[in-house]
């Protein structure tokens, strides 16, 4: 924005710096000079002294200095501060003039040069007539100077030059233009800075010196002026402390001035300036609280200083500016590191500035509404010869006139008129909005969301006044939800009202309707009459007519919009608007409720839609339709009425979708669920309520899900807690609050009407074909079609079970591993009502353990729902847990021919294999047969045949067999020799013929085979008799391939006498055998130990008798005497 009359002048706002002019530099054509100048200007950082340089020609004319006043006796000041003054000392009157001159000490034409330099200095001095401005000379030299003192010529010529130019040595400088330029420059400018400071110091002294001449009566203005000047010079001198001090006094002095309507503006202007300086310095000194305090004081002092009533807006403008300026200073300080807080941040000042800007606007509207005939006065009373005022804050048409009574009232009038007419063209809203948005930015930063929203509302409203409706709506729309969500209804209402106006003036249909919907709703705090006005308008709009204008809208704007509306109307038809009402509080409330959380597929799904209107008059809707996650159903859930456009106006409470205010209306819907939706969730995804008709305009109020809106949840909560009595309602009506939304339901399959029974005889025996008889009976009224049976291992159990379980329908043969664990969907045809069906399922379990089996019967049946044929898929399932056990345990052992347990057998020597089958099954088993399948390394000694054929074993009974085997040769392998397999064929005794025999194979244990050098066996009768001879024949067989020397001895025993070789050594050839005969003669009866036969193999010392004992008997039973013998014994010997 271009600076207005109220903006502070730049010279006030800038930071005052010592003003130094540089002459004798040709920065355009002379490269060296250029370089020098650049060195002065280039990067002036904080560490460089604060000087503002300016290059001027040597003969530049500086402002003339007025001749010093000798006495203030008759002097009457015409104003407080000249508008030119600050600028003069910032940019026109230098503190120091520097004359640059190229001159080396060894200059040949020294004389000439010296005098030229002198004249240059003189010229400068001339034009600074009467000022204290210092002059300095800088010699630009090509050579680097020698250290001081060493260069004799230099020092003397320097002295010469000084008095030629009548300069003190301190004011003569040498600038060797070498590579260290910048260094020299910095030294130079520091020197300049000192000169400047002394200059400003003297200026301060000068001003102070006037003081004594002044008197309180006539020179009040001067007190202020001088104080200000001192402060300002102090600033130039960079003495901010004193500056501040003096500004403060200046400030107090301003307020001591006699204020009057005519000089009010001047006083306020100056007060404003000084206040600005003070605050600025306070912030600079990092004492923000002082700044704030000063500002508060300032405002309190000036608030009421309004000035002339006709120009009241000026005061507002001025106030606004004060606040804005302070806000800026504050913000500036923060940028430089000051920390602000939530309750004390620049935002408040911008906000206040905006507030005064608004006030200014209102005042302007009142004071400046001259009708168009009034023209701007000519000549322009605001014009001045210079184009500017002489003193800050004076009236152009009476500058310098101090008398309080208006010398020329006519002139005054014209002047005021001019100002008023000017004010008329000020873009107030623009100003206000800028300030507001500044404030918004601040409050955003300091966590004040609500304040922010509030300001945005104001911005919106301002845009509305500025007729920028689009922007207005954008803002209002943005903040509405804040107020809605926090439930500040009357704030929301007022915002909506403005929004409605905007949308009306833009003839923006959708918005217009949306806002109307909410303004009619329960959240709106509008009066009934307003509501019914809006409702009427809404209906008009729906009937494709123009609505009446909103109250107190700008007349011209209304005209414009009416035009727009008529245009809109003309292009009627196809005007369908969908409005998502969920997120605000529309005037119709909606709740959808399924009657049950789940429905069987063969009963109709039912739900209610409850609607309630909060608008003043009954209203008719053309259509109500409900949307589902499965659109299939949408078609069944529509209520529609065909009515003429005209009906809409007359509020007859008839018609399917007519809502009477405050009454809860219920719509019940029914539909038949699709059978493919069984097991799925049906969800109401939308409820659409259509207002108006396609022919006219048509609004679709759309609720996502089962209704509800921005306010409903809180209301529900309150209602739940309430102790209020709810008046009794007729049965068909309900209390709105007591309704809860239930927007989804499950579709579950039809209840099956069949029975499934299972018969079987647990436990199952490993590997048998376990029979499970499934009996299905239909109790359906109609035929159950396409009955399918799924049977087998219930899925989701241990994976290994699946490998070891096999199911088949064919029980006549053992099924192998190729069979599945579960037989899916075995078709078993149809079932007539009452019909019974039996199916045997055979299960083979390869391992013991518990298994869960599933029997699942599914079928189709047609049902009529709402006289609509549907095919329902029903199913019933049964699960059963079956234990599998071993049918029997088989024990196997090896024994010697003497039935002694063997842990090893001897090559080529017969031994016995004994098997023992112990039934573990609770059911009787029939062993069909058994079979011994020998491995190659074993040979049977005699014919192998089963001894247990068709043996029936009850639980716990066992059947044994014994086979005589021989292992021909020692083919010893690690872990012994494989014996073979023992195969038992069996079935349940109870099982029918057709049931297959189960073969259980037992792998026989391995046995260790050893060779033996000498095999001995004995022939002897099975028993002996006392005193009867008992012949025993021992066969000794050499199993080695060597001749064996054998030493045999028989130890005597008390129970026997015997005849035969007592001790003998003999030799047995390889592979042959020797026979020894003994005749034992038992002496006593009983189980007697035989005389023991000891054999020693000379070649094989470790051949022990223990080994022998394996083969030959050690005891024998001896019977008592026979009678005959007794008698013989009794006959005495003659």
């Amino acid at each position: 924005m271009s600076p207005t009359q109220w903006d502070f002048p730049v010279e006030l706002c800038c930071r005052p710096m010592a003003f130094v002019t540089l002459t004798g530099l040709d920065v355009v054509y002379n490269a060296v000079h250029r370089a020098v100048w650049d060195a002065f200007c280039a990067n002036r950082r904080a560490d460089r002294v604060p000087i503002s340089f300016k290059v001027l020609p040597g003969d530049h004319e500086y402002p003339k200095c007025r001749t010093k006043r000798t006495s203030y006796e008759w002097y009457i000041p015409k104003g407080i501060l000249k508008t030119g003054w600050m600028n003069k000392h910032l940019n026109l009157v230098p503190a120091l003039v520097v004359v640059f001159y190229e001159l080396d000490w060894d200059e040949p034409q020294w004389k000439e040069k010296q005098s030229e330099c002198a004249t240059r200095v003189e010229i400068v001095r001339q034009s600074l007539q009467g000022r204290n401005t210092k002059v300095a000379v800088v010699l630009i030299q090509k050579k680097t100077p020698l250290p001081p003192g060493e260069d004799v010529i230099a020092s003397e010529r320097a002295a010469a030059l000084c008095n030629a130019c009548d300069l003190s040595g301190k004011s003569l400088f040498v600038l060797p233009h070498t590579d260290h330029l910048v260094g020299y420059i910095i030294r130079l400018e520091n020197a300049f800075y000192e000169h400047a400071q002394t200059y400003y110091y003297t200026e301060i002294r000068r001003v102070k010196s006037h003081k004594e001449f002044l008197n309180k009566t006539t020179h009040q203005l001067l007190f202020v002026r001088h104080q200000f000047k001192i402060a300002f010079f102090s600033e130039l001198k960079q003495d901010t402390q004193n500056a501040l001090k003096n500004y403060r006094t200046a400030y107090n002095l301003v307020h001591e001035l006699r204020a009057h309507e005519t000089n009010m503006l001047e006083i306020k202007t100056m007060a404003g300036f000084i206040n600005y300086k003070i605050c600025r310095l306070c912030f600079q000194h990092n004492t923000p609280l002082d700044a704030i305090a000063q500002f508060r004081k300032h405002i309190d002092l000036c608030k009421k200083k309004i000035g002339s009533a006709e120009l009241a807006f000026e005061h507002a403008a001025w106030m606004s500016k004060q606040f804005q300026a302070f806000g800026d200073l504050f913000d500036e300080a923060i940028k430089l590191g000051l920390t602000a807080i939530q309750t004390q941040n620049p935002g408040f000042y911008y906000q206040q500035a905006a507030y005064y800007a608004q006030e200014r606007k209102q005042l302007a509207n009142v004071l400046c509404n001259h009708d168009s005939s009034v023209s701007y006065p000519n000549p322009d009373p605001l014009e001045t010869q210079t184009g500017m005022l002489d003193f800050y804050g004076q009236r152009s048409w009476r500058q310098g006139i101090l008398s309080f009574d208006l010398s020329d009232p006519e002139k005054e009038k014209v002047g005021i008129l001019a100002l008023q007419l000017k004010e008329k063209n000020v873009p107030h809203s623009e100003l206000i909005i800028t300030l507001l948005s500044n404030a918004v930015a601040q409050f955003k930063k300091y966590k004040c969301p609500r304040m922010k929203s509030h300001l945005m509302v104001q911005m919106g409203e301002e845009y509305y006044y500025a007729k920028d409706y689009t922007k207005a709506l954008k803002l209002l729309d943005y903040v509405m939800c804040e107020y809605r969500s926090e439930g500040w209804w009357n704030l929301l209402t007022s915002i909506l009202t403005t929004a409605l106006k905007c949308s009306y003036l833009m003839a923006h249909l959708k918005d217009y309707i949306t806002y109307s919907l909410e303004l009619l709703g329960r959240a709106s705090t509008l009066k009934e009459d307003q509501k019914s006005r809006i409702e009427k308008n809404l209906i008009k709009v729906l009937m494709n007519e123009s609505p009446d204008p909103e109250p107190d809208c700008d007349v011209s704007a209304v005209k414009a919009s009416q035009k727009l509306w008529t245009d809109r109307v003309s292009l009627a038809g196809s005007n369908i608007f969908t409005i998502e009402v969920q997120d605000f509080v529309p005037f119709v409330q909606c709740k959808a409720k399924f009657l049950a959380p789940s429905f069987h597929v063969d009963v109709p799904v039912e739900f209610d839609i409850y609607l309630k209107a909060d608008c003043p008059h009954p209203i008719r809707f053309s259509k109500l339709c409900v949307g589902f996650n499965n659109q299939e159903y949408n078609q069944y859930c529509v209520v529609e009425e065909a009515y003429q456009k005209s009906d809409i106006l007359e509020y007859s409470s008839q018609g399917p979708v007519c809502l009477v205010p405050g009454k809860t209306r219920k719509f019940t819907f029914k539909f038949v669920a699709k059978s493919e939706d069984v097991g799925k969730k049906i969800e109401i995804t939308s409820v659409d309520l259509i207002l108006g008709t396609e022919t006219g305009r048509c609004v679709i109020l759309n609720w996502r899900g089962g209704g509800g809106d921005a306010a409903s949840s809180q209301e529900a909560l309150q209602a739940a807690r309430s102790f209020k009595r709810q008046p009794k309602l007729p049965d068909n009506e309900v209390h709105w609050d007591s309704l809860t939304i239930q927007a989804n339901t499950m579709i579950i399959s039809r209840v099956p009407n069949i029975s499934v029974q299972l018969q079987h005889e647990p436990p199952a025996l490993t590997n048998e074909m376990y029979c499970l008889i499934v009996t299905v009976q239909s109790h359906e009224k109609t035929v159950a079609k396409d009955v399918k049976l799924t049977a087998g291992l219930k899925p989701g159990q241990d994976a290994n079970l699946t490998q070891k379980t096999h199911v088949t329908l064919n029980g006549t043969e053992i099924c192998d591993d190729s069979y599945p664990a579960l037989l899916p969907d075995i078709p078993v045809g149809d079932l007539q009502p009452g019909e019974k069906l039996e199916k045997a399922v055979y299960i083979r379990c390869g391992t013991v353990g518990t298994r869960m089996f599933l029997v699942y019967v599914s079928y189709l049946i047609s049902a009529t729902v709402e006289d609509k044929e549907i095919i329902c898929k029903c199913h019933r399932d049964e699960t059963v847990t079956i234990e599998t056990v071993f049918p029997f345990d088989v024990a196997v052992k090896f024994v010697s021919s003497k039935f002694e347990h063997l842990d090893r057998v001897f090559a080529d020597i017969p031994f016995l294999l004994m098997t023992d089958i112990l039934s573990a099954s609770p059911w009787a088993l029939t062993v069909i047969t058994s079979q011994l399948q020998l491995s190659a390394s074993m040979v049977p000694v005699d014919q192998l045949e089963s001894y247990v054929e068709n043996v029936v074993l009850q639980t716990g009974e066992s059947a044994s067999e014994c086979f005589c085997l021989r292992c021909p040769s020692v083919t010893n392998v690690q872990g012994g020799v494989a014996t073979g397999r023992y195969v038992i064929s069996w079935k349940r005794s109870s099982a029918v013929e057709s049931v297959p025999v189960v073969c259980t194979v037992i792998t026989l244990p391995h046995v260790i085979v050893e060779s033996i050098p000498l095999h001995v066996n004995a022939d002897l009768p099975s028993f002996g008799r006392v005193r009867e001879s008992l012949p025993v024949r021992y066969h000794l067989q050499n199993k080695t391939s060597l001749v064996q020397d054998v030493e045999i001895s028989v130890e005597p025993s008390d129970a026997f006498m015997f005849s035969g070789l007592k001790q003998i050594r003999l030799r047995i050839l390889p592979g042959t055998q020797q026979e020894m005969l003994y005749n034992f003669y038992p002496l006593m009866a009983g189980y007697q130990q035989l005389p023991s036969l000891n054999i020693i193999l000379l070649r094989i010392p470790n051949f022990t008798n223990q080994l022998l004992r394996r083969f030959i008997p050690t005891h024998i039973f001896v019977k008592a005497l026979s009678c005959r013998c007794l008698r013989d014994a009794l006959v005495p010997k003659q």
Partner: protein
Amino acid sequence: MAVCIAVIAKENYPLYIRSIPTENELKFHYTVHTSLDVVDEKISAMGKALVDQRELYLGLLYPTEDYKVYGYVTNSKVKFVMVVDSSNTALRDNEIRSMFRKLHNSYTDVMCNPFYNPGDCIHSRAFDNMVTSMMMQVC
């Protein structure tokens, strides 16, 4: 005396707002609403504060040009906001304090009225009178 007195629910919606009829009430509604920013801040800050600092009286929320806004929060997180004319310098912190106390007592009685449903807007003669007295009384 107060120019506007408001009771704000735990959830920050207004339970009761009354302002002197002469002024534009909407303005006060905004003032009260915006002051909640500061209340929120103070409460959240207070959580950490020491016991003696956890006073119910929140003090001056923020000053505007022409009004001072004070705050108070009950243990049930219901907020009282009182707007006072800045020109009215007679009102010291202590007066404000005691006014809030009165308000709180009166509110408590409302809470104890069996026919009042907590969370609903306050319609109570007794409370009205109390508020009126505070807006009338010249401190």
